[in-house]
C-alpha cells in the first residue's frame, strides 16, 4: 500500500467555514446564503467576508432582523429544490425561529408522505467565555437533537468545519450547523482541496486505552489538552468527537467505550438534559457490561450564562472539569 501525501495548509476555523460556503456556491448556482449583516459586513463573526464580492447580492443576501422569515424563506426555497444556507447570528436567536425549524423544516417531508425534501442548512454560532451575558452565549444543540427530521452538526476543527459544511449543504435534509464563537480564530492544517466529510461519522482525535472522553465543540480541545496532561501522569485518554450529533455515530462511540471501559461526556451546554445525557443513556443501554465506572458528565452548571466574568467562569466547564471527571471515573475500581 502506498501512501499518497496530501498537501496541506493552515487555516482558521472561520476561514474553513467560509471556504466551505464558497466552494459549495461555486459548485452549484442553487446554493445561496442569507442572514443578518452577512453581505457588506461579512457577518457578525466575519465568516462571510468576501463572499458578496465573489457571488453578488442575489446569492449573498442581507436580511431584515427577522429570524422566522429568514428560516422560513429558506424552507420555501429549499422546497423548490434550491440549497439555501441561512445564518442565524447567535444560536440564542434560533429560539425566535423554532416554529419554522421544528414544525416546518423538520416535518414537511414526513407530513407530505415523502413528497418534499427540505435541503436547508442553518448555520449558527454561540458559546460562552467572553461575557456576552445570558442571551448571546447559550449552547442549544440538545433542543434540535430532540427533533426527528433534523440533522445536527457541530464541528470542532477547521477541517471538520469545511468538510462537514459541504456535506450539510448537499444533504437533502434540514441540517442545523453549529459553530463555536471561540473556535473561529483557531488554526489547524487542512487539505489543500476541500474534502467532504460524511455526516454521521465520529472522529477519534486521539487514541487511548484507559478512558474515553466523548466531547463536542470547545470541549474537544479541552479534552485533547487534558489527554496530553494525563499522558504525563501515565493515563491514556481516548478523545472522540461525534461531529454529527444527529444522526449519531453510535458504533464509534460504543467501540471506544467497550475498549476503555470508562467514559466521560463533555460539552459546554448545561449538563441537565444535555446531549451528554443521551450519550450516557446510549452507552449504558448498549455497553453496560463493559463499564467499570459510572459515566461522568461535564458541562455547564444549571444557570443561564451570567455576565460577570468570575461568575461566567464558574458556570461553564473548563479543562480542569474534564480532568477531574477523568480522575473520578478512574478512581472507581
Amino acid at each position: 500500500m502506498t501512501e499518497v501525501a496530501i498537501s496541506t495548509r493552515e487555516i482558521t476555523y472561520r476561514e474553513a467555514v467560509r471556504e466551505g460556503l464558497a466552494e459549495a456556491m461555486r459548485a452549484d448556482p442553487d446554493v445561496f446564503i442569507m442572514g443578518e449583516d452577512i453581505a457588506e459586513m461579512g457577518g457578525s463573526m466575519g465568516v462571510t467576508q468576501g463572499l458578496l464580492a465573489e457571488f453578488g447580492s442575489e446569492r449573498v443576501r442581507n436580511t431584515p432582523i427577522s429570524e422566522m422569515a429568514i428560516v422560513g424563506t429558506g424552507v420555501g426555497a429549499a422546497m423548490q429544490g434550491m440549497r439555501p444556507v441561512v445564518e442565524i447570528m447567535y444560536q440564542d436567536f434560533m429560539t425566535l425561529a423554532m416554529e419554522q425549524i421544528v414544525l416546518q423544516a423538520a416535518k414537511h417531508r414526513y407530513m407530505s408522505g415523502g413528497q418534499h425534501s427540505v435541503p436547508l442548512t442553518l448555520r449558527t454560532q454561540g458559546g460562552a467565555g467572553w461575557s456576552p451575558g445570558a442571551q448571546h452565549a447559550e449552547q442549544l444543540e440538545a433542543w434540535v437533537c430532540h427533533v426527528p427530521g433534523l440533522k445536527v452538526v457541530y464541528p470542532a476543527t477547521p477541517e471538520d468545519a469545511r468538510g462537514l459544511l459541504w456535506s450539510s449543504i448537499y444533504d437533502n435534509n434540514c441540517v442545523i450547523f453549529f459553530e463555536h464563537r471561540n473556535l473561529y480564530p483557531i488554526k489547524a492544517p487542512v487539505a489543500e482541496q476541500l474534502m467532504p466529510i460524511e455526516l454521521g461519522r465520529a472522529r477519534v482525535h486521539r487514541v487511548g486505552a484507559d478512558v474515553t472522553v466523548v466531547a463536542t465543540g470547545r470541549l474537544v480541545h479541552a479534552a485533547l489538552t487534558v489527554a496530553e496532561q494525563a499522558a504525563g501522569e501515565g493515563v491514556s485518554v481516548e478523545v472522540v468527537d461525534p461531529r454529527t450529533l444527529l444522526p449519531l455515530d453510535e458504533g464509534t462511540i460504543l467501540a471506544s467505550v467497550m475498549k476503555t471501559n470508562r467514559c466521560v461526556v463533555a460539552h459546554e451546554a448545561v449538563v441537565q438534559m444535555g446531549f451528554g445525557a443521551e450519550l450516557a443513556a446510549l452507552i449504558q443501554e448498549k455497553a453496560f457490561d463493559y463499564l467499570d465506572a459510572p459515566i461522568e458528565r461535564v458541562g455547564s452548571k444549571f444557570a443561564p450564562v451570567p455576565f460577570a466574568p468570575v461568575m461566567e467562569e464558574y458556570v461553564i466547564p473548563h479543562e480542569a472539569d474534564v480532568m477531574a471527571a477523568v480522575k473520578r471515573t478512574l478512581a472507581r475500581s
Partner: protein
Amino acid sequence: MLLIRRFEEKVEERFRAGDLAGFLHVAIGQEAVAVGVCQALEPDDVIASTHRAHGHALAKGTTPNALMAELYGKVEGCSGGYGGSMHLYDVEKGNLGANAVVGGGLPSVVGSALAFQLRRQPRVAAAFFGDGATNIGTFHESLNLAQLWRVPAVFVCENNGYAESTPSHQQLPIKDLAKRAVAYGMRSIVVDGQDVEATHRAALEAVRHAREGQGPVFLLANTYRLTGHYVGDPQVYRPKDELPQLRVTEDPIEKLKVSLGLANSEWQALEAKVVQAVDASVEFAEAGTDPRPEDALKHVYAD
C-alpha cells in the same frame, strides 16, 4: 365550488358517523375564495394552505379520491396517510402543503417565490391564511421580506371575521385589514370573497402583478365561514340568529347560481355529477390501503 361544498358536507357526515380520525375544519361558505384564486393560477404556480384546507386542495387540482383517502388515513391519500386534514400536500399539483400552524406557511411561500425569482421562472406562489393570522409574527415578517425583495407572491387573506371563536373586534385593533399591507408598502386588492367571479378577477390582477415582477400583492377577500371553527363546534360565541341569516344572504354558491342564470334542470345535472364524484371518493377511500404501522418510521429523512 359545488364539489367543495358537497365534499365537505360528506366529510362532516362521515366524521360525525365516526369514520374519520382526528379533527376537522371545513370551509363551508368560503369556497369562492379557494376557487377564484386557484383558477387564476397556472398549473406550475404553487399555494400554501391552512388548517381549513379541503377547498384549496380541490381547487388546486387534488382529486376528491386522493383527498378523501387522506382523510381516511389511507396510503392512497394525497399525503400517504402521513398528513391528515390539516396537512394536505400535493406537490405535483402545486400544493406545497396545508399548515396547521396559523401563519406557518407564509414564510415558505416567500421562499418559493424567491426561488422563482432567482431562477428567472415566471411562476407565482400564493399563501392562503385567515384574518387571525394577520396577528402573528410570520405574517409580518413574510410581508415585509416579500415586499423588500419584490418576490412574486400573493397573500390571500380569507377574512371570515373570526379567529377560531374570537370575533374581529376582540382580536384586531383595526377594521380595515388592507391597512396591514400599507405598512409594508405592498399593493392590496380588496374583494367580496362571496362573489367568485369578482374574486377571480381580483386574483387574476394580483397574480399578473406578481408574475410581471411588480412585487407581491395582499389580496383581502372578505368572506363568511357559514359553519363552526371545527366540526362539532357549538358556536356559543356567535349571536344565535347570525348563522341562519348569513346562510341565506351570504352563500357564495347561491349567489353563483343566480348570476349564472342556470335552469333548474342544468343545476340538478351539475349536482348529480358532483354528488356522484363525492360518493365515489368515499367508496375509493373506504376501499383504500391501511398503512402498515411500521411505515410510521419512513419519510423522516430524505435520502
